[in-house]
């Protein structure tokens, strides 16, 4: 089983975003792996190991598009346990979902994975498009917003559950496929490869951290840098970002001292009860 995991670097979502003069100022930010992509890596690692801490069977390849600095995020994913990393060097501020999907399509053509797993969205652009566009362009099935993955013993299909508005939906999907993952995918028993791990297998209820051993091992792992041009992908975007602005601030509210005052205000002032 070879799994390709596209990962995006994003600005630290916990830092206050600076929006001024029509643009977002990211000069002072710190960068990290998009949380959903990190969950995708965790899922890929679980699908290729014999239970928690077990031997890796198969290969997890992480790929990112970004400036050279993005190698820091890729090294972190190698330290988590990914086997190899590919950095497609380029300006990640000048991409749209379509161009990302076309670059990834070329990477898929070169790597020929059995499965592509990525986050359902990046927490900066909040687009939620790349997985679906990539699936469309490859003619592969897609399984989006996944809460669990059970890979069949023969490696040819998976049973998945998806977070949908009405509850949880169960689907079966043939491989190769594109999967995008939601929060629940890092649950203890959310992901398992029937061929490798027994039904009783459990992992930590979160994505794994890079261990010291993992960090040492990562130094010897391949991190290959390639260019968009070498993949034969022409530039050009379909969606142009015109400008950013800060959302209107809510007007400051009032503090009330008691439940009585709260109920009185909701009844007489806001007239909502």
């Amino acid at each position, binding site marked *: 089983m070879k799994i390709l995991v596209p990962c995006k670097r994003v600005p630290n*979502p*916990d830092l*206050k*975003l600076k*929006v001024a003069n029509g643009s977002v100022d990211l000069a002072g930010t710190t960068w990290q792996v998009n949380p959903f992509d990190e969950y995708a890596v965790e899922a890929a690692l679980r699908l290729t190991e014999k239970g928690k801490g077990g031997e890796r069977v198969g290969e997890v390849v992480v790929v990112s598009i970004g400036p050279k600095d993005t190698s820091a995020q890729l090294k972190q994913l190698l330290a988590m346990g990914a086997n190899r990393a590919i950095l497609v060097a380029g300006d990640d501020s000048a991409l*749209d979902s*379509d161009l990302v999907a076309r670059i990834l399509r070329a990477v898929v053509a070169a790597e020929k994975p059995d499965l592509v797993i990525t986050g359902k969205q990046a*927490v*900066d652009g*909040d687009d*939620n*498009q790349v*997985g*679906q566009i990539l*699936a*469309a*362009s490859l*003619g592969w*099935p*897609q*399984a*989006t*917003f996944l*809460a669990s993955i059970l890979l069949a013993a023969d490696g040819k299909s998976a049973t998945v*559950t*998806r*977070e949908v*508005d*009405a*509850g*949880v939906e*169960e*689907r*079966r*999907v*043939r491989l190769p*496929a594109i999967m995008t993952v939601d*929060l629940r995918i890092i649950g203890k028993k959310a992901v398992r490869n029937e061929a490798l791990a027994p039904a009783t297998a459990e992992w930590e209820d979160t994505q794994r951290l890079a261990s010291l051993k993992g960090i040492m091992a990562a130094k010897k792992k391949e991190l290959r840098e390639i260019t968009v041009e070498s993949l034969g992908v022409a530039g050009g*975007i*379909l*969606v*142009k*970002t*015109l400008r*950013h602005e*800060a*959302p209107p601030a*809510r007007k400051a*509210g*009032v*503090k*009330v001292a008691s*439940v*009585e005052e*709260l*109920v009185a205000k*909701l009844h007489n002032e*806001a007239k*909502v*009860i």
Partner: protein
Amino acid sequence: MPGTATLVLLETTTSNLRSASQPAISAARKLAQANGGSVVGIVIGSGIGAAAQDAARYVDKVLCCDSPALAAALAETWAPVLVAAVKQTGAAALVASATSTGKDVLPRAAGLLGAGMASEIVAVMGAKSFRRPTYAGNALTDVEVLTPVAVATVRQTEFPPAAPAASAGTVEAFAPGPTDALGAEFVALHASASARPDLTEAKVVVAGGRGLKDAQNFKVLEELTDLLGGALGASRAACDAGMVPNDLQVGQTGKVVAPELYFAVGISGAIQHLAGMKSSKVIVAINKDPEAPIFQVADYGLCATWESTVPPLIAQIKAVKATG
């Protein structure tokens, strides 16, 4: 008017238009003004003739793509139908509400069309330009789609429900091409059983967070919720801690709500939670931490524990309701 129609994917039950699709119709009307053409709805499914008639009350025309092979909303089969409908109608835009189906299917259709897509738009700025939240709602970003066809999903809370048109539109059968699910298969929907209104449509939402500490403690919030005829919500922290099911999650990665009244109880107000509720009309925050960021967006803040406030709050709301 070929080349100028606006196509809108309308989700249905077997008999009705789903209310979740109504905001998409309103957005499509705005686009149709910019495009100078009509609004064409498309319904996809199996045995949906009655639903097509219901949907026709809101749009100029409904394409009804009714086939047993399309019963489940699989992006693999639905996206090619949308592509065929865009081509047949010469539509300049394809929109749908940003439901879990819309978010699954439309990007695939955009991919097949080679069309640019704007996700979760909150405003139509022109025939090809849209405003949408990014960075968990900490920025509003204007984007321009550069392709002949623009694809967009619509944030439901930001567009009003559609009003029925003066005269109902026509319903036309739309034949799907050969359907191939590419090995994807619907197995089952494990629906969340709740007698309460849908979280995204409720007029009142009562949400609890990490401060509730335990699943058992949500009972008192449920009492407040039911007293107000509202829906129960939760922060990601409460969902992650297993206190409530994940489909109650409000936030950037959960549901986006904009009720008339939002109670945030024991919720600190992380950026990603605020992204899902700050468009609410009136926000009430109850939190024992005076520094909790939730107070910065709350219209009414009460700095106290939920244990000491929610039970008397329920009693006093009952009293107000009794006296009118």
